[in-house]
């Protein structure tokens, strides 16, 4: 049936309807609030010692912009292949996604990008600032020195590295086993730095005399000597113990030693774990002896877990007291300890249990209880003129007459590769400010380059890049609108089973494939940055949000978000855009009259 027969009834229908341009009605004049795009800092970036722009890196990976993502890492970190493998990834602990389901696999994605760069021969951004006409001597070739050389070279300095040994990399080459960091990866990273014109002198140990006379050839010296001297055990018979660090270097760069039966490894840090796991790979059964509890070990927990899985035994609450030889066997006497209370440093205090000792026997005993600077001059002097920054120290007016900068483990609170890289970057910025703006500006400039609320620095911010417009506010989970996120599974690359990995020094974890990486990168909330999700424009009741690129018919580019704006002629300040922004990339503020 039809409704036509009712037309004759002429039922009244008078509605408010206008065909005049609605643009005449500037509804923005009603507003007392104004939204605007204000990118903020993601917690991962703030927590990353290198201050990497992680939300942006993952956004680019999720869209297939792998080369752009790669270059985004290199803006802040010259050693992504290394960090993608060995970093303790505090970024993942800070990841907001951890409060939703599980953190984004940031570390595995960094490794993925390194492998992608190798396999697809990505071109690196080798651009450098105009030459500053200054030369910097860099002592040591560990991560802090490599980082300092990289950033200083890019800032226009001529850099020369002086390495005491025969190969570059410091602890990366000699202290981290191949199953965690193959030399081939490290070699690529070093070629990158050499590609910037950095010269590396080998078998070139530096002496205090060299520094005293450096002025004739150099305008500054960076000391990144690291911790080269093993810490003494301080117990009777300690000369019978072998040096764990030396063992690590030999087993990686020399020939693999034959099985020695059984070994004890004294210590609880990453080196102790590395020594024990390397021993296993040479067919030696390894037992770690540690004075506190397993939970108190300073080694990364995932490394401890993997070591145990591979077959390393841990004897905890056992403080070494003496080493004695009994025929071919070594005996380690340990005092049994008991936990008491948490100390001021947050670690459990332990005290000996009166009269309780135990004797552990093995074919060899390795000491891996830490290390310190080999020589006193490698440390900043006790001098009120030394400027102590979070990751470096500087003595602008030293007896040698040129600035001296100190970086790496000796001046870092956290002894990690990422912190060493941060150290080199911080020293590079400090030195550049010293030369270009003067000593008085150094601290203010360091603060200006901060990423978020911690100590991480951004070279991109220092150089005036787009990142400098981001607010230091660190986006928390409660700042996000998680209505727009769906649960998804976290994945890293596949790992070889422990019983297989323990048979060789081959890498344990494989790389994510491209589809897997894109899927993992998509899990990133992109906290604090615009990823063109378009919610603001979609939900604006006044059609007052413009995305110029979208209007041009553009797809994603590397400049997501930059051409979005709110047309204040029509924005009524309702704040829907801000509320519906899933990632806290907008703010709304009362208008200033």
């Amino acid at each position, binding site marked *: 049936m*039809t*409704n036509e027969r009712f037309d004759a009834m002429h*039922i*009244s229908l008078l509605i408010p309807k206008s065909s005049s341009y609605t643009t005449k009605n500037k509804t923005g004049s009603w507003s007392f609030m104004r939204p605007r795009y204000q990118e903020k800092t993601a917690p991962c970036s703030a927590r990353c010692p290198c201050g990497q722009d992680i939300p942006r890196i993952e956004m680019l990976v999720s869209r297939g912009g792998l080369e752009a993502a790669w270059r985004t890492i290199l803006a802040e970190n010259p050693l992504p292949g290394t960090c993608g493998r060995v970093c303790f990834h505090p970024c993942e602990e800070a990841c907001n996604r951890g409060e939703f389901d599980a953190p984004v696999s940031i570390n595995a994605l960094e490794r993925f990008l390194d492998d992608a760069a190798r396999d697809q021969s990505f071109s690196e951004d080798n651009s450098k600032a105009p030459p500053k006409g200054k030369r910097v001597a860099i002592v040591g070739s560990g991560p802090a020195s490599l980082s300092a050389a990289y950033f200083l070279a890019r800032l226009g300095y001529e850099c020369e590295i002086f390495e005491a040994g025969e190969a570059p990399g410091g602890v990366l080459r000699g202290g981290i086993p191949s199953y965690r960091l193959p030399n081939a990866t490290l070699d690529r990273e070093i070629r990158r730095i050499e590609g910037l014109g950095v010269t590396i002198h080998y078998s070139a140990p530096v002496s205090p005399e060299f520094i005293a006379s450096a002025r004739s050839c150099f305008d500054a010296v960076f000391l990144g000597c690291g911790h080269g001297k093993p810490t003494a055990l301080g117990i009777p018979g300690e000369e019978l113990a072998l040096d764990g660090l030396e063992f690590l270097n030999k087993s990686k760069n020399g020939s693999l030693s034959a099985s020695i039966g059984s070994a004890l490894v004294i210590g609880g840090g990453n080196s102790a774990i590395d020594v024990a796991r390397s021993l296993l790979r040479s067919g030696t059964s390894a037992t770690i002896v540690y004075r506190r509890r397993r939970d108190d070990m300073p080694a990364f927990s995932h490394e401890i877990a993997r070591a145990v899985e591979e077959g390393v035994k841990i004897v905890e609450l056992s403080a070494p007291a003496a080493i004695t030889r009994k025929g071919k066997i070594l005996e380690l006497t340990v005092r049994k300890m008991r936990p008491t209370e948490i100390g001021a440093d947050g670690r459990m205090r332990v005290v000996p249990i009166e009269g309780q000792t135990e004797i552990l026997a093995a074919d060899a005993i390795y000491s891996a209880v830490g290390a310190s600077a080999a020589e006193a001059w490698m440390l900043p002097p006790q001098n009120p003129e030394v400027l102590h920054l979070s990751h470096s120290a500087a003595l602008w007016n030293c007896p040698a007459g040129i600035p001296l900068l100190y970086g790496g483990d000796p001046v870092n609170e956290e002894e990690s590769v990422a912190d060493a890289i941060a150290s080199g970057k911080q020293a590079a910025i400090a030195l550049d400010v010293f030369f270009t703006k003067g000593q008085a500006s150094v601290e203010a400039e360091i603060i200006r380059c901060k990423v978020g609320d911690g100590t991480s620095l951004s070279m991109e911010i220092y150089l005036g890049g787009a990142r400098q417009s981001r607010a230091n506010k660190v986006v928390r989970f409660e700042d996000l609108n998680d209505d727009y996120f769906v649960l998804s599974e976290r994945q890293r690359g596949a790992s070889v089973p422990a019983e297989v990995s323990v048979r060789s020094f081959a890498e344990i974890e494989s790389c994510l494939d491209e589809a897997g990486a894109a899927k993992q990168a998509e899990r990133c909330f992109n906290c604090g940055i615009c990823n063109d999700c378009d919610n603001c424009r979609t939900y604006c009741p006044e059609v007052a949000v413009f995305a110029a690129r979208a209007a041009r018919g553009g797809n994603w580019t590397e400049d997501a978000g930059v051409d979005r704006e709110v047309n204040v002629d029509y924005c009524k300040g309702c704040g829907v855009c801000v509320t519906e922004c899933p990632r806290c990339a907008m703010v709304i503020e009362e208008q200033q009259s």
Partner: protein
Amino acid sequence: MREVLEGSQAVAEAARLARVKVVSAYPITPQTHIVEELAKFCSDGSLDGKFICVESEHSAMASVIGAQSGGVRSFTASSSHGLALMHEMLHWASAARLPIVMAEVNRALGPGWNLWVDQTDSLAQRDTGWIQLYCADGQEAFDTTILAYRLAEIVNLPVMVVLDAFFLSHTYEPVDIPTQAEVDKYLPPYEPKFLMDTKDAYTLNTVAPPNVYMEMRRSIQMAMEAAPEVYEKIEDEFYEQFGRRYGLAEEYRCEDADTVLVMAGTAASTARVAIDNLREKGEKVGLLRIRMFRPFPVNALRKSLEKAKKVAVLDRNCSFGAGGIFAQELKAALYGSGPNPPKLYSYITGLGGRDVTVDTIGTMYAMTRDREEPASESLWLGLNEEMLKS
């Protein structure tokens, strides 16, 4: 095909067969079964429509207003507090002249928290410009929903199909469900008289200053005034095709009745039994069940009651400070209807789901018969007076 369905399911079936394109609703007992059923239809593909989940009834109505403005048939359902929350948007829907259909299940408002039948929720929306049709059984709920789309789209006003909580919404009865082809034959595809269209752009619902506002209000009233006539015509067509009709108000044994009982909703089924009993005892009593409450079909009601000497109205509602709402409306309608209008007796009972039994109806009739003149206010039946002493 005859199926055994809940009242709620009958309404959902009707919306499906009306080929609604958008359903948006927020759950509230006792309405929830209706939209649950429709959500199922949307997800299993038996309805080619989109179900929009929202965070409140206000948004549910706003969503269907948006959908209908975009030129598609839409549906929602609510109840009690949910309907109260929609209030602002109810005004909007009618003044925007959108032929939205909503099922409203009569439920009491709290506090005291109460899930059961009470007509105050829908009657409190009487001034919002919605046509209101009250149903008494599952078949009628189905048929009325189909009729509602037809009526709404001719007069460009929204229609509320009203069902009693539980007694109708949750009761299973045999319901004859026509085929899609049969419904399509009766209900033509929706042809909006205006819609948001980027090819012919204009602004809807703009500012209406004093020089036009009043005319727009008059236009709503004119459409309302036309609604009873349109309804009767489309119901004739419905009768031709499906063999069922209900009228603006349904008469039962009224022909020679001296006293006519008036009510709406499922209580009327009980009243029929009471009337049959009374008739057996020789009482000349009939029943008039009001179906259309907005617009109030004054002429039809006057005609149905022209021979009656007494009219007794049963209200399952109360306008506090005034009394039973159907009684007030009917009293106003009868004023000036002729030289000897019937005397009107007003009773309130059955609030918040309290049973209205055959005895309740009997009492109501006896009180009406035995009193020469009606009380000036509504009388409450079945109260526990003890409780009120404290």
